[in-house]
């Protein structure tokens, strides 16, 4: 979100530089004194903010990449094509940042390649490693089209576009697998994770909520880039995304409630325990409220209201992932975890880098269709 106007760096650019400097300092400590020097991670809470937000949320927030490409290229809903490239860009940058976060969080990041040769097919983490490696490759290939077009490499672009369908289908399958598998991580801790979050349906809930949040991200990033780059908003398109988002939230919400009722925890969920309050924050604030808002055409037509409702969905999603990875484990682990300031600084730095890279890409690559009436879409073969 950097405005390239004028010689003076903007407010947001200064924030980015400050976070980069801070992050560099934290990383120096992390790689010279160990994880304990910069985090509140402990034997009770071996996973903290970096896993809970940077990885679990990062992967989910990038889910628009596979849903929108599937809708456009498999379901043949062509009118969503203008948002394919920004969504693919978000997904690609999102996954790159997830891997970067992983390099900071892993105790021995130089062994990151080990799952390639040391196999344990019984491990969900092994499966996720493979899926993320493969999907990152798919996203890179999908993203490369923008670079080829910018460079005028028509043959490479044609080859890349010829591979669209297999790439999109591979992306959808890989995403279905690892988005749900992030939930499967926690299937092995029935005794530790609070019953408001522990359910055999964890993988299904992770998958459904990723679909919803991916759509919310499409709306939010369109709004942000329209403000940052002075582009017009594809409002009719975003209104429709908003409408689909209501349906996606509905499917997720009903599944979540049905699961709680089926297991007999509906009463607990709407009780007054600490866990219940966090559940209500996540569910009422991040699922029910935006659903009620977005169900009204007037809200969807209003740029700001549409944006605010989508932000609620994103916040609710983040709270859900943090509830699963932190809040829901606190009672069993006998303590509380709050990230240390340096931990939070790294997360903020990664978010800022994401915004900055997105801005750079929009500035230098044909991410958005050129703004000429009537809108002439990027020449993508169908």
């Amino acid at each position: 979100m950097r405005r390239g106007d004028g010689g003076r760096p903007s407010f947001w650019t200064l924030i980015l530089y400050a976070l980069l400097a801070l992050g560099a300092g934290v990383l120096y400590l992390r790689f010279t004194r160990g994880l304990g020097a910069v985090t509140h991670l402990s034997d009770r809470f071996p996973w903290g903010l970096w896993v809970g937000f940077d990885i679990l949320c990062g992967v989910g927030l990038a889910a628009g990449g596979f849903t929108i490409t599937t809708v456009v290229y498999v379901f043949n809903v062509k009118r969503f094509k203008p948002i394919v490239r920004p969504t693919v860009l978000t997904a690609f940058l999102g996954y790159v940042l997830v891997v970067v976060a992983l390099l900071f969080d892993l105790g021995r990041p130089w062994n990151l390649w080990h799952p390639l040769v040391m196999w344990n097919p019984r491990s969900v983490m092994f499966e996720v490693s493979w899926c993320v490696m493969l999907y990152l490759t798919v996203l890179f290939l999908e993203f490369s089209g923008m670079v080829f077009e910018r460079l005028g490499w028509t043959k490479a672009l044609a080859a890349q576009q010829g591979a669209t369908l297999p790439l999109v289908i591979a992306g959808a399958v890989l995403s279905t697998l690892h988005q749900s598998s992030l939930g499967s991580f926690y299937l092995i801790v029935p005794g530790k994770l609070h019953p408001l979050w522990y359910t055999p349906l964890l993988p299904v809930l992770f998958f459904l909520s990723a679909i919803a949040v991916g759509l919310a991200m499409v709306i939010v990033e369109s709004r942000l880039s329209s403000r940052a780059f002075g582009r017009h908003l594809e409002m009719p398109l975003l209104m429709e995304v908003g409408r689909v988002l209501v349906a996606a939230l509905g499917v997720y919400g009903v599944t979540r409630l049905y699961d709680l009722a089926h297991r007999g925890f509906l009463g607990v969920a709407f009780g007054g325990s600490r866990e219940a309050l966090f559940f209500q924050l996540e569910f009422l604030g991040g699922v029910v409220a935006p659903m009620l808002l977005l169900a009204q055409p007037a809200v969807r037509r209003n740029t700001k209201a549409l944006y605010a409702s989508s932000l609620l969905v994103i916040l609710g999603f983040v709270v859900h992932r943090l509830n699963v990875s932190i809040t829901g484990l606190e009672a069993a682990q006998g303590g509380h975890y709050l990230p240390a300031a340096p931990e939070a600084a790294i997360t903020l730095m990664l978010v800022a880098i994401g915004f900055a890279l997105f801005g750079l890409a929009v500035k230098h690559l044909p991410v958005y269709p050129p703004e000429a009436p009537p809108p002439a879409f990027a020449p993508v073969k169908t």
Partner: protein
Amino acid sequence: METASRALLIDIVRCIGCRGCVAACKEAHSFTGSDQETELSATAYTAMVDFDGDRHVRKLCMHCLKPSCASVCPVGALTKTAAGPVTYDARKCLGCRYCMVACPFNVPRYEWSRVVPAVRKCDMCADRVAAGKVPACVEICPAEATVAGTREELLAEAHRRIAENPGTYVPQVYGESEVGGTSVLFLSPVPFEELAFQVGLGTQPLPDLTWNALEKIPGVVTVGGAMLFAIWWITHRREEVALAGARGAGEAAATVTAGEVKHAAR
């Protein structure tokens, strides 16, 4: 090579709380610190908690028969060996710490302040066991409160003690069936929950729970991939048919985009 898996039996009735096992474990692994450890750490593979009524309870890796830690490790750095111990190979380890999250007994510890950190936990003195010796904690124990043997022998011994000493033990061997059984077995004079044992873990090996999800992957890949391809074929075929129909009807299809035709066809 022995085929029978080695195990430990820890009898809380016999334990005199001398903490020799804690000290011997430290010495065997060249760890510094005293024998007063009450919590496991990266330099305490076993610890001892004293309860009212002169009860002393050892903490250590339970060496599950189907260990969660080994099941979740993406690179197989943790292994349930045929000899009994669950061992760890730091050279393979990524440092993802999923083993620590997954362990139902909260056993693995991490070297949080090291630049090249490793997971730390009891390995039942695997090197000593391989050399035909007993673990250090067993060797030192003056009361034979911790003894080593094959799991079958020790289970038989535990049930013999329960049967021959009515009223001395609760009639349960902790570890016989918990999470599918463990290679460390406990006998207690009082119900285990009173000594802060994890109860209610069930008898199902926990790796089964993640396997239930993982085994669906081939189905998702084949059925999902085929379904998506079929949907692609149908949606694009429908478009072709609509286009052909529009042309055949002599309508001014040339100016109509395919998407609009598809809409009209619905």
